[in-house]
């Protein structure tokens, strides 16, 4: 029983991280109908930004942790806007496939620039926030796990609020339904798209830092696998759907943990991607795909 509960917590904590990254995928997809494969590498840049910013603040205090988190989110928001301006904006109006391939190019560019600038050696990520292990019965929960969960939930609601209750959010939804009509009613499409990228990239940075706080070894290729898993999570929940990304992430985290828990540790990644194939075959719109209410 204790083992089951412990695995449940492991699964939820892992899933919360996937959910956090998936939120960014889903945001951009919701507005622009294209999958930003560079997202997982912005996630990596976020972790490295955190690594370097952390050296400027006293270690181990919650305040400097928050400052580092906000700083990295700012840096990545800027990076997201630049990527959009340089790589995606010139292709506005071209077929989605062209943009998709460009996104893969940007992803490879970031990975290789990362190896050039940061070096390919893994670095150990400093402890940004005070870490504590809570023992409840036979179960262990770390403060880092709780924080990932908390941040994921907070960001989920902040995103919902931005999309549903602000003027910018209304403009994002309008743009997503019909870009031409949106510009006819006076929405500055370029500005809204830039904002979407800034928001998505800031989410990636938050994901990167929380990921690195839980698994303190970072390298320029660290984004690839979690990025893929988050993509699976986004599709699983219904890509474009904010709550779907969260649900998809949690489900994927639990499935992976269950696979390992029941003795199939070798099949962990295989099962994660089998889930993607299954969902595409059986329910391509994703778990929450039908309810379009929150589509950005």
């Amino acid at each position, binding site marked *: 029983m204790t083992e089951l509960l412990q*695995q449940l917590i492991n699964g939820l904590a892992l899933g919360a991280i996937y959910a956090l990254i998936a939120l960014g995928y889903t945001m951009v997809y919701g507005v622009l109908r294209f999958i930003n494969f560079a997202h997982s590498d912005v996630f990596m840049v976020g972790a490295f930004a955190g690594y370097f910013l952390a050296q400027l603040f006293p270690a181990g205090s919650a305040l400097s942790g928050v400052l580092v988190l906000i700083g990295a989110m700012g840096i990545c928001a800027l990076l997201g806007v630049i990527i959009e301006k340089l790589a995606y904006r010139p292709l506005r109006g071209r077929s989605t496939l062209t943009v998709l391939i460009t996104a*893969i190019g940007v992803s490879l560019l970031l990975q290789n620039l990362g190896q050039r600038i940061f*070096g*390919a*050696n*893994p670095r*150990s990520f400093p402890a940004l926030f005070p870490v504590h292990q809570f023992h409840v019965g036979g179960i262990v929960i770390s403060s880092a796990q709780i924080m990932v969960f908390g941040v994921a939930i907070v960001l989920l609601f902040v995103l919902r609020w931005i999309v549903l209750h602000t003027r910018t959010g209304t403009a994002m939804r309008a743009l997503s339904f019909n870009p031409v009509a949106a510009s006819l009613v006076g929405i500055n499409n370029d500005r809204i798209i830039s904002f979407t990228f800034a928001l998505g990239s800031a989410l990636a940075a938050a994901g990167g830092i929380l990921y690195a706080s839980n*698994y303190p070894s970072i390298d320029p290729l660290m984004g690839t*696998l979690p990025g893929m898993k988050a993509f699976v999570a986004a599709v699983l929940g219904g890509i474009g759907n904010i709550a779907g990304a969260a649900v998809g992430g949690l489900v994927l985290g639990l499935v992976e943990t269950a696979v390992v828990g029941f003795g199939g540790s070798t099949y962990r990644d295989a099962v994660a991607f089998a889930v993607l194939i299954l969902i595409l075959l059986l329910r391509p719109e994703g778990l929450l795909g039908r309810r379009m209410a929150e589509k950005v």
Partner: protein
Amino acid sequence: MKQMRFTLLATALAVAAVLAGCSRSGGDAGSSTIKVGEFASLTGKEATFGTSSHEGTLLAVEEINAAGGVLGKQLELKYEDNRSTPGESATIAKKLINNDKVVALLGEVASGRSLEVAPFAQQSKIPQISPSSTNPDVTKVGDYVFRVCFIDPFQGTLLANFAKNTLKAKTVAIFSDVAAPYSVGLAKFFKEGWLAGGGTVVSEVKYTGGDKDFKAQLTVIKNARPDAIMVPGYYTDVGLIVAQARQLGITVPMFGGDGWEAPELIQIAGAENLVNTYYSTHFSPSSTDPLAQKFVAAYKARYNGKVPDAMAALGYDSVLVLVDSIKRAGTTAEPALRDAIAATKNFPGATGLTTLDANRDASKPAVIITVKDGKFEYLETINP
């Protein structure tokens, strides 16, 4: 996306292979230097290993050249980085053999990457000496592939004895990396030795090198309540595994093989988490052997006081064994050089006496190291 990269990689490899093949003409007769090729993981996941090994190799080459070289010629070390990634080493080896006309290949630390190159070395009849690949399959590729370190059946057995006699464990869990031949092999040989010694394996779980989350597997292990946990992986993964195990409240001893040996292990895992962990390796800088002490002093002088590890010592010895063989053969032509390497007997180096057996493997003593107050500490020596 993955597939895309594979296609790109395959194309790049094909182009490289064609280019390498083109320049096969021309000989190296009359060259004023003896060229030795080295492929190493200077960056990436196992960068610490590759860098240490390379520094040892370079030191040996410099010392030999300073002493007048070999057969009246200077040694010229041609080395390249494979970034710890699969697929690179074979390309590098082809280039070193075909373009640079090296007389021998030195490399690699990781068994997986040594295995990538071994078939080319064998095909081209260029001797390959691996400094520290311990998987037995490496030298089974052919009679041109050698190593100057002990192999995993020995390391596995000694770890089994260590767990039984020193740790007084009766039950163990084994947590190995399915993606690394080194880890799979060492786990297998440990298990054989452990079962033969009357021990019980209560849990056997796997991970894939590069994974970051091990809590699911560790929860399974925790529930099996082993007396000790064997983790035959490489330091980047092991560091995270040890830290996460301690977070889950697993306090039993954890131990592994020479894949643990890197200062990064302490940074990644955290010194307090490494209490009660042990690993076996080839060399300890606190060895009292005069040749070892001479090597430690030279290495410290050359690399700003850095203390050499086992990979550095084996990299150093791989050059010494090669040079000794060239001297005995009196030529770098094949098969004379190959035969001379194969005949290496009781050659004294930094890691003790090297004798190559019929399988072209060395049999050498191992040392057990433990971590105390964030520092590696010598515990005991185990003879073969």
